[in-house]
């Protein structure tokens, strides 16, 4: 009898154990799913918020390039050009489009339909083809960011009115019926620097700043990292000093990035008087930050070169330096390059240390060299995310999309390079 009782007991516990097994299996699946969903959610959210920024709202106006209206008489006089009332061009054209607007307040509201940079766009257009002076031309003029936000949301059937008045909405409706307002590719986003006006703000300045900073970082960190790795792998004697170097490298790899910003501020800026906000100092800080990554990956690459190659080189009479330079280094180079690309991707996405060294300043001009004040893409994202205008949400997401595509490209290259060039021994 007791036998069957035990059997029942075992049977019972077995079902329980199997249930526990299934539960555990499901915990794992759920964990993976949560992780993957987080990835998907993040991308969907960013793309959903940002895809609109690649198009901007433009209004079609018949612009008459009237010299008296602008207040100029000579197109080659730069002083006149900069003092000219360019905004009067689109304003007048808009008033002609809506002739029954008379009160001062309504006129101002009407003018608010347009970006306050619209006049300068027309100036550039006129300077590019001076024969337009005195003639009339139909031009697509950039609309204000509030109009842009409203028009896009209205097209999506979910109108967001914000600061617009009923009258402005009516005007937009009229323009829409006449086909005089439409979404066009937003070239400003890729061609301009930062601006306080969302519709005129672009990522060109930040992208160039990022590029310059990365070039600086690569020029410094790759040679230093590779040399350090060669020394540690091939030449370093086994002693306390070498151990100390290794401990330092491993610890630096885990130091929070913001600490590198403090280092940059205290040492480079306050002690060595490197100017603030410039790609040089950004590159220096990011070099110190990425160096551990590059050293560690380069060492792994050197390690993977089989000792037989070294022995063969030494055997035919090469010196140790000749062995390293002529044989080990070329064979380890693909791995080192992969490491460098990964380090650069890390540097490209880094924000916190750059905030410390003044790369967070509001900079309109596109930097021309390593010593021009600049900002970088992640910092631009940070600055825009902090801006109160709603239109900047869209811009920020678009900038993130650009940044992420750069990162994805870099990482894919690294993976491809590793697959393609790495040799198995």
């Amino acid at each position, binding site marked *: 009898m007791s036998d069957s009782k035990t059997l029942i007991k075992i049977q019972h516990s077995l079902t329980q154990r199997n249930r*526990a*097994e299934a*539960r*555990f*299996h499901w*915990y*794992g699946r759920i*964990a*993976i799913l949560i*992780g*993957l969903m*987080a*990835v998907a959610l*993040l991308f969907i*959210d*960013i793309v959903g*918020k940002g895809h609109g920024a690649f198009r901007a709202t433009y209004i079609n106006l018949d612009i008459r390039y009237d010299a008296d209206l602008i207040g100029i008489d000579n197109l080659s006089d730069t002083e006149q050009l900069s003092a000219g009332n360019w905004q009067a061009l689109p304003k007048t054209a808009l008033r002609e489009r809506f002739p029954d607007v008379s009160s001062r307040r309504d006129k101002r509201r009407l003018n608010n339909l347009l970006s306050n940079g619209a006049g300068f766009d027309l100036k550039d257009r006129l300077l590019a083809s001076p024969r337009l002076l005195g003639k009339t031309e139909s031009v697509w003029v950039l609309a204000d960011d509030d109009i842009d936000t409203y028009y896009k949301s209205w097209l999506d059937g979910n109108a967001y009115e914000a600061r617009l008045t009923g009258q402005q909405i009516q005007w937009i409706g009229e323009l829409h019926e006449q086909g005089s307002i439409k979404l066009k590719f937003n070239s400003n986003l890729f061609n301009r620097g930062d601006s306080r006006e969302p519709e005129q703000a672009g990522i060109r300045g930040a992208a160039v700043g990022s590029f310059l900073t990365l070039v600086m970082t690569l020029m410094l960190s790759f040679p230093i990292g590779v*040399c*350090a790795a*060669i*020394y*540690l792998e091939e*030449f370093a004697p086994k002693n306390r000093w070498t151990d100390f*170097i290794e401990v*330092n*490298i*491993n610890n*630096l790899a*885990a*130091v*929070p*990035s*913001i*600490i*590198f910003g*403090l*280092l940059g501020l*205290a*040492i480079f800026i*306050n002690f060595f*008087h490197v100017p603030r906000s410039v790609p040089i100092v950004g590159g220096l800080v990011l070099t*110190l930050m990425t*160096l551990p990554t590059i050293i560690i990956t380069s060492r792994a690459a050197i390690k993977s070169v089989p000792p037989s190659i070294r022995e063969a080189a030494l055997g035919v009479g090469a010196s140790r330096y000749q062995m390293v330079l002529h044989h080990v280094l070329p064979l380890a180079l693909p791995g080192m390059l992969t490491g460098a690309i990964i380090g650069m991707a890390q540097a*490209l*996405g880094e*924000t*916190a240390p750059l*905030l*410390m060294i003044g790369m967070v300043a509001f900079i309109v001009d596109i930097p021309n060299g390593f010593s021009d004040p600049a900002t970088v893409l*992640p*910092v631009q*994202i*940070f600055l825009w*995310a902090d801006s109160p205008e709603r239109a900047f*949400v869209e811009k*920020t*997401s678009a900038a*993130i999309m650009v*940044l*992420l595509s750069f990162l994805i490209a870099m990482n894919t290259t690294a993976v491809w390079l590793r697959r393609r060039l790495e040799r198995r021994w």
Partner: protein
Amino acid sequence: MQATHLLSLLIVLGSFSFYVSRGRSLALANPLGGIRNLHSLPSYYGLHAALWCTLPATFLLAIWLIFDEIVINAMVMTDLSPELIPSGNASYNLILNKVANIANGILPRESQPSGLLDAADNMLSLNVVSQWSITLLIITLAMFGLAWSSHKLKPDFRARPAVERVMQNLLLACACVAIFTTLGIVFSVLFESIQFFRSVPIYDFVFGLEWSPQTAIREDQVGSSGSFGAIPLFVGTLLVSAVAMFIAVPIGLMSAIYLAEYADSKVRTYAKPALEVLAGIPTVVYGFFAALTVAPFLRDLGASVGLTISSESALAAGGVMGIMIIPFISSLADDVITAVPQSMRDGSLAMGATQSETIRKVVIPAALPGIVGGIMLAISRAIGETMIVVMAAGMAAKLTANPLESVTTVTVQIVTLLTGDQEFDSPKTLAAFALGLMLFTVTLLLNIFALHIVKKYREQYE
């Protein structure tokens, strides 16, 4: 000449020396019957000359770059006319800036006191003298190096070992950059912190309960005496990190277990890189996600069930930070789990244990030191994480353990205290360095501790 011009000049001189010396060594070798009568290959003689020509000069150039401004400034300030001699440190810098601006033509020369104008002229002439003298010095040094190397150039000169010795030292110098970086970090945060602790006692800083770093500009201002008690920041940091770990540890660990033990190779090849995408996303993107998507969502969710959740809650920042840390934990745990020998699993399964029992009772205990070490590294990561909390957590230091409220963290305060223009020696900016010192110490200790655990408790199999 500019430093970049000097550098290009050195490169030109270096290549010139290389070709000249290599040619000379060939010329020496020819009458002897070819280069096999030389001790080293001709290019080593060239390299030797190039190194001797450029290295000392580059070294000098670097020293000059670092010190010329400091020396010139000091000389200008000592020659200052007596009525302008500054009283304190701040006015010293002010006058120096004025002089530099006049000299560079940023400030107009009119309406400036004649003493400043004299100083500016002095600075300009000193600059010219310094530029010319360094150019001459560098060219002389380069020529001297080249002459020295040519003097040594003989068929039996051991050029290769000489070049290799220099290269060895250069490599060693590169390896030592890591040490200099650590030293730089330690000194930069330590010195500023010591200065800070002179004005704010260290006890008040570490154990003070109130944080409001706004110091008064005028003596009679109300309520801006500035108090630097860092406890609210520590608590805020711990709260956000705790939320992050609460999310990251179970999800990261379970994903690692699933990927290592259950998933077939097809799932593994796709799910693992997909999960690792999370590690490659810049933190500023997470910050944006937390501030603009997660925080409003949580606030509305809380409002719909009658909870007030701050729009800068620790929950949003910590939650998103947790997502960021998932791949960190899962890849570290994956490594240690796969490192557990298969024979242990087989033994357990053969005894009749189910797979989950094997994992829980055999694999995890065997991998535990590695997992704990990984978690500690992840904690240190969470504590040092900046952008997510800067964008999604609050600014006001509140002493609370409620994750639904807004808290601020150490890193947020460092960023707020140091962004924008600041006076370098006010306690407000120095406080950031003191916080940096705390952050550096804590993360360093956590890392050392993690490595120690891994080393000490690792079971050695095989």
